[in-house]
């Protein structure tokens, strides 16, 4: 069983799917938070992701020139701070003026921000792909040998291992923030009913700032993880992520962060597993159409149940 089916399925389809799902999940958290709290679809979210991976690359370059051999996750720390500042800056100057305007204005503004941020990155770093991490990722030898002794050989490259662990840690932190801190409770309250939250004495502007900080941090993590996974960065990577992240947010239910996590994992797995030869020899869906999977799931969800799997909001 393991030899004929499981080995290939788990190592080459399931684990990459899970990793991709983690990246989508982290990105979708920010989307669903802004959708729930500020009530608009943020088109510039993918660009924050992309920018943070470029910043990480830049910081690694700086560290290397100082003679320190830095892991991408170390470069990610200053990069995520910059990404959060960028998100706050964009909100202050481009979204805040529309707080009381019809929400579609802010959607147009975010659509414009998408192009502005991308052009800025292209001006600074150029339009071409950059190599993020060199070399071929070999499977972690320890895990391979350990699992092989149980006839259950798992081939997990180190990069996938750190992405999975990193995502779990961020999720735990996020769970603590949402359920046990004042800010998190405030975020949930504003998401449920902004007017009621306001009259209960919650400072909505502060909550919005917190939302951008959390969303920006998760986006930065997603961007760096994505760059670690694909090992290169390019200026369109954020836009490519946008649709699956929206799909994940809608699948999980708008305004439900853990729904978005579940949605992200489902979409990531579905995309990878759609390439598995379920019927006959060839992949069920040609790899060229992989990114169509997320879209089909989203459209299906919009037809059947627009509120998503976890009873999200429908505006």
């Amino acid at each position, binding site marked *: 069983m393991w030899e004929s089916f499981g080995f290939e399925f788990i190592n080459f389809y399931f684990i990459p799917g899970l990793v991709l799902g983690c990246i989508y999940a982290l990105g979708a958290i920010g989307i669903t938070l802004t959708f729930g709290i500020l009530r608009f679809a943020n088109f510039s979210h993918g660009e924050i992701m992309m920018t943070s991976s470029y910043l990480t690359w830049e910081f690694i370059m700086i560290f290397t020139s100082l003679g320190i051999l830095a892991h991408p996750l170390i470069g990610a720390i200053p990069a995520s701070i910059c990404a959060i500042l960028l998100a706050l800056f964009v909100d202050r100057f481009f979204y805040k003026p529309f707080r009381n305007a019809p929400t579609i204005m802010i959607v147009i503004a975010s659509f414009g921000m998408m192009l502005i941020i991308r052009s800025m990155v292209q001006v600074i770093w150029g339009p071409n792909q950059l190599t993020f991490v060199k070399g071929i990722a070999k499977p972690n030898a320890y895990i391979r040998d350990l699992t092989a002794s149980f006839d259950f050989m798992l081939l997990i490259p180190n990069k996938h291992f750190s992405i999975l662990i990193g995502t779990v840690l961020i999720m735990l932190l996020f769970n603590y923030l949402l359920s046990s801190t004042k800010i998190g409770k405030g975020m949930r309250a504003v998401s449920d009913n902004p007017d009621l939250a306001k009259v209960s004495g919650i400072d909505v502007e502060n909550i919005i700032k917190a939302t951008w900080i959390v969303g920006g941090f998760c986006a930065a993590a997603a961007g760096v993880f994505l760059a670690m996974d694909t090992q290169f960065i390019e200026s369109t990577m954020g836009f490519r992520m946008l649709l699956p992240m929206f799909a994940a947010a809608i699948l999980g239910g708008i305004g439900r962060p853990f729904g978005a996590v579940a949605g992200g994992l489902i979409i990531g797995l579905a995309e990878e597993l759609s390439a598995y030869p379920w019927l006959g020899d060839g992949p069920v869906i040609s790899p060229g159409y992989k990114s169509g999977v997320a*879209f089909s799931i989203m459209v299906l969800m919009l037809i059947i149940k627009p509120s998503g799997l976890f009873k999200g909001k429908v505006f």
Partner: protein
Amino acid sequence: MDIILGYFLYGMSLLTVGGIYALLALGLNVQWGFAGLFNAGIAGFAAIGAYTYAILTTAESKFHYGGLELPLLVGDVMAMVLAGVIAGVIGLICIRLRADYLAIATIGIAEIIKLVLKNESDITNGPRGINKIPRTWEHFSEERFYSSFPLNVINSSDSWQMFFESIARWWWQPFFAGTIILIVLFTYVLLEKLRTSPWGRMMTAIRENEMAAAAAGKDVTRRRIEAFILGALIMGLAGAFLGQHLRLIEPTQTFDPSKMTFLVWVMLIAGGSGNNKGAILGAFLIWFIWSSSELVTNGMIEILASIFDSVDISILKNRAGFIRMLFIGLLLQIILQRFPKGILPEKRPAVSGKI
């Protein structure tokens, strides 16, 4: 003399592309200005139009499906029809939901269209695209057109060949630009009629207050789908003409989802959404700024390079396009925040008839 001719031809191409963008902006105006429907997939609809036209009208080629060699007009009409059908399907699914969802769905559709065009290489020649798309007017000087109906009735192939060799190579340019301008004007008149008709007023009512319109017995969903399809028809036609203008289309660069869609949005918002005149004005204005800024940035790079020897011209030239995009983006933000109504604000049609 050559310089004047050069300016003349540059002006013609400005008019041509400006006109195509004006059509796209008019299409978006029906969707967004009239009905309040957010379409973020304009490039997708234009791509459908361009590819439909190209596949139906190009000569036999070993790279892509074709050889149908249908009349160009059939290509134009089918480009509209197909774009409309796809808009109808999306409309049925997403139109009931709020504008944001439609925005996400349309951006998705544009991506899917790009995927199909890229992957179905047997039909579309994949990323390499379709070449030698016949261009209205210019096509008469191609052999397969002057040797067939209707030109072969007037004169023989040989004399047509002599004739086309005797006139200037750019003879078709004013005709092509003129055709597009005529189509823009025709569309404008048609949309103005629609806007002031009961249908147009109903659209405004639905956009401004959906509940009240529904309570007054208007079929909100149906009207919205109608507006969405009508806008897509116009975009499909614009796509067909863009394909003709470029003659070579491919899925990623020609129909860059963000750049093209974004430019049309800036045009409509700058000109004034809801106002057909504004849409046309905005399209020509922004296109003029966009294409002349290329000259300006190139000139600035030359000046910079002549002052500082250390400046690497190739890097600057490589990135000048992105700086222009950045400025257009900032322009949109300024217009949105300071002049949300645009240059020509929407004018509501006066109530007609007796009350």
